[in-house]
């Protein structure tokens, strides 16, 4: 295909559909694809900010004592790293970018149910993000409480916690609105023949995620309002000297923030469920069980928040119950892992970049999940609570899990929307570097935690020095891989070779439409006659 032809195909795509040009054709567009890309670039931009902060933390911890910054700066740094990564990247990231880009097409719809509300969500997200950023440079300086804003410290510290929680509160609105938009869309706008059991598993996972966003986020909202009231009005609801109870803050906070972990991981599992069958040339094994396990994770995951609080002074009964429920969540998670692995069995596996990232998701998520069980069991948790073991654990799940799935989705879907592709070899090299660096960094952290190194400490004993140096070296390998991946991916998307048709051989609807997709997605309204992984039925060799 010549460049001319690409351009003529591009002319009918969503890239040049509006009379408007420049930035206003993006920031005022109600097209789900444009909003998806807005979300992608804004959330991913914040991801890179978070990465930089993380690298700085690792440099500080490279050797005992002061390396490059003072203790207060360090406190602010790990707080902002957490706030940016969690509230500005990983929670809005998947739903906002790939959810918006792909989900309406996967169900055969022209757009989401409420396109204007969708754009509004992005605006609220940006406003919240700006408020969070403003909190870094105004008032008493960047918050230093950790991303959890635990009282009583968050009620007393002189840093700018009030503005930061306001920003997170505002972003919560955006999350709720996206959630209700997606639930409504999936209920109402499925194309003819797109039954519930023909929904692609990515859409299923978004559906489960959207419910958590709707049901859990309001609790975070009220919790943050109460913290702000504590600071500004002196309500004393969490202040023991005034009759309040700080543990109640922790309950309320984790009632949201634990389910939020599943907001972060479920869409990632959905991506893997879409990628594994395509690159194994085999229908997914246990489709219904994977769909069901998404809902089961969403439901059971809402009942386990107490496992963050084993050492906070809950009753032993509560600890037992929460520990038991935590182990229950492992079942649907394991169902997914077993089904992915079974899909691979006797498949004709092609190890292209999306699949490599996808497979590493399965491995890294499994390590993260199993280390989670160590933390979920009360007896072992007491020993490793608030150590680097916890930091290693959740980075395995959040970065090794969601992060790698996000990279997989970037390599799998972005070429579809750009009509151009990246080079395969550098993508594989970058994957290998990141995978290596990741494990050097975070597995070392888990070992450090087992040896007793606490998290969030500025300084440490000399016996932890070697492993900390190893972990920091890992972070550089990881960062090098990330840079190569980004350069290769974006150079490909903007100037690379044409990408057309259905090169991966996917059977979901997004692969049946022109590349890049036209504004209305479908030239004729689709009638769905086969399942999302029925490769034979859709005539894919």
């Amino acid at each position, binding site marked *: 295909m010549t460049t001319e032809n690409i351009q003529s195909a591009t002319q009918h795509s969503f890239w040049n559909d509006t009379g408007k040009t420049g930035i206003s054709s993006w920031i005022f567009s109600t097209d789900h694809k444009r909003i998806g890309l807005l979300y992608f670039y804004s959330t991913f931009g914040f991801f890179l900010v978070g990465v930089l902060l993380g690298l700085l933390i690792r440099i500080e911890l490279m050797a005992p004592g002061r390396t490059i910054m003072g203790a207060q700066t360090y406190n602010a740094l790990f707080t902002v790293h957490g706030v940016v990564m969690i509230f500005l990247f990983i929670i809005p990231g998947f739903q906002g970018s790939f959810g918006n880009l792909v989900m309406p097409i996967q169900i055969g719809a022209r757009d989401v149910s409420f396109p204007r509300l969708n754009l509004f969500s992005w605006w609220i997200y940006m406003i919240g993000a700006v408020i969070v950023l403003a909190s870094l440079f105004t008032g008493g300086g960047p918050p230093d409480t950790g991303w959890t804003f635990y009282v009583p410290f968050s009620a007393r510290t002189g840093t700018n916690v009030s503005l930061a929680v306001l920003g997170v509160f505002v972003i919560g609105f955006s999350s709720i609105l996206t959630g209700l938009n997606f639930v409504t869309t999936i209920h109402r706008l499925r194309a003819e023949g797109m039954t519930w059991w023909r929904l692609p598993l990515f859409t299923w996972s978004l559906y489960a995620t959207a419910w958590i966003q709707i049901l859990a986020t*309001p609790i975070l909202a009220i919790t943050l309002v109460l913290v702000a009231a504590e600071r500004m009005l002196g309500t004393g609801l969490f202040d023991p*000297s005034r009759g309040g109870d700080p543990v109640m803050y922790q309950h309320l906070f984790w009632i949201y923030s634990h389910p939020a972990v599943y907001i972060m991981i479920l869409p990632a599992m959905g991506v893997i469920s879409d990628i594994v069958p395509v690159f194994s040339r085999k229908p997914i094994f246990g489709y219904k069980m994977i769909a069901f396990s998404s809902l089961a994770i969403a439901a059971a995951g809402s009942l386990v928040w107490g496992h963050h609080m084993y050492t906070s002074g809950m009753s032993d009964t509560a600890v037992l119950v929460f520990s038991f429920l935590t182990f229950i969540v492992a079942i649907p998670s394991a169902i997914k892992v077993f089904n992915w692995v079974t899909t691979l069995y006797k498949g004709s596996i092609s190890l292209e970049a999306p699949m490599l990232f996808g497979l590493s998701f399965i491995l890294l998520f499994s390590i993260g999940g199993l280390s989670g069980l160590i933390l979920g069991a009360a007896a072992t948790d007491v020993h490793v609570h608030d150590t680097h073991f916890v930091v290693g654990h959740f980075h395995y799940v959040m970065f090794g899990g969601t992060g790698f799935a996000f990279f997989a989705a970037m390599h799998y879907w972005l070429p579809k929307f750009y009509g151009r592709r990246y080079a395969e070899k550098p993508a594989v090299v970058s994957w290998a570097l990141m995978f290596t660096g990741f494990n050097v960094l975070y597995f070392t952290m888990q070992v450090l935690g087992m040896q007793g190194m606490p998290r969030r400490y500025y300084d440490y004993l000399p016996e932890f020095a070697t492993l900390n140096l190893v972990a920091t070296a890992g972070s550089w390998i990881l960062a090098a891989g990330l840079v190569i991946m980004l350069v290769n991916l974006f150079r490909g998307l903007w100037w690379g070779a044409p990408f057309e048709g259905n090169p991966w051989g996917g059977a979901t609807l997004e692969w049946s439409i022109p590349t890049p997709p036209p504004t209305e997605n479908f030239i004729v309204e689709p009638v769905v006659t086969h399942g999302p992984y029925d490769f034979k039925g859709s005539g894919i060799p």
Partner: protein
Amino acid sequence: MSHAAHKDYAGAKLGMWLFLFTELLLFGGMFLLYAVYLKRYPEEFAAGGQQLNWIMGGANTVILLTSSLFAAMAVTAIQREERKRAVGLICGTILCAAGFMVIKYFEWSAKIGHGIYPGSEHLKAGPPGESVFFSLYYMTTGIHGLHVLIGGALLGWIATRVKAGAVHAGDFVLLENGALYWHLVDLIWIFIFPLYYLVL
């Protein structure tokens, strides 16, 4: 987009109901704190409840129930294409909202006049349970009052849309959703009123 002609009423209402869930859960957080602290400080809560004026609270309950009735009647009116009556009824709801806020103002200022407000010296000197009770009272009724204001403003805007003819018997989902939101504001008060004014 060129496809605005197709409007999904069931979808619009589903979206609204989902939003109402989130509002219930928002207040749920405060009801949860109420439950825990009531168990911890039953006597102080009882003493605090005695100090609240149940006549004013009762009056506000009647006002909100009436306002909800007006909102429901406005929806029926628009279905019968009686636009003027619908606007009048919505204005009735907004008047009730204003009345509610006026009574709330007198209630709060009386309490504040007695030195009872979050962080006040009076509460700091008293038993901790009392401080917790009144802080919760102010937060819960305050956030509810904010919802009354938002609901009133929302209905005011909808009234102008009805007047302009944008909302009519063939397309009244905006008014219906506005009324749903108002019923929620009412419903939450129906829980706040007995919990703070009656059962203690």
